[in-house]
């Protein structure tokens, strides 16, 4: 009935052993939009980069962080949320060079440092017609 896009949310503990669970869920979601296998791998890597960073930092306030997927006709929007605002602007360290280069190369749109939103960061991947 509603014409708003479908959303899927997943909340995960700040622990390394659950990053692979995020990847599995992401691959199922990306498959639903119609991304091909190669792009699905890219999305999994980009999501893992963020999860790994969050897990590495941890939180004193929150048990879990949340990944929200919005499934549009030709685009997957992903935002990371957490009640712990100290995690905003996640990638601000020179050690993050590898992660940053990977995320920016693999995703089409991203906002990796936000301090005034109700989420930590956002990234999107657009479905392209096969040439």
């Amino acid at each position, binding site marked *: 009935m509603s014409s708003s896009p479908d959303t899927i949310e997943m909340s995960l503990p700040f622990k390394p052993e659950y990053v*692979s669970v995020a990847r599995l869920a992401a691959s199922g979601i990306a498959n639903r939009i119609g991304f091909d296998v190669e792009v699905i*791998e890219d999305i999994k890597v980009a999501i893992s980069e963020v999860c790994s960073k969050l897990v590495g930092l941890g939180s004193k306030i929150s048990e879990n962080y949340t990944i929200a997927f919005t499934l549009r006709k030709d685009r997957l929007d992903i935002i990371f949320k957490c009640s712990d605002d100290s995690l905003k602007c996640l990638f601000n360290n020179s050690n993050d060079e590898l*992660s940053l280069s*990977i995320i920016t190369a693999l995703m089409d749109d991203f906002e990796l440092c936000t301090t005034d939103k109700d989420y930590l960061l956002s990234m999107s991947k657009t479905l392209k017609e096969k040439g």
Partner: protein
Amino acid sequence: MSSELNFKEVQSENLYELYVSGEVDIYTSQVLKSKLYEIIDANQKDLLIECSELNYIDSTGLGIFVGALKKVKQYNKQIYISGLKDNIKKLFVITGLDKLFIIKE
């Protein structure tokens, strides 16, 4: 529990070959790091990391490869990487690490 990361090792006179299979992420990366560092310190040989059964890696694993390279260089040795799948090779290119390692087809 199913093991996400597995190794096979083959030694010859001048080369140590490590076959890596499975997934390297933040959960499995410490095992990879220990394995690489032990091999390098114990053998002080050129190292070939064979990756044709490596299905997943991200910056956590790439960082460990870089750490291993620094260690190998202390002994004036090299790291060769072979068998990279397209998606993983892409990550080496994106990050410029394809220029640090000797990547073989």
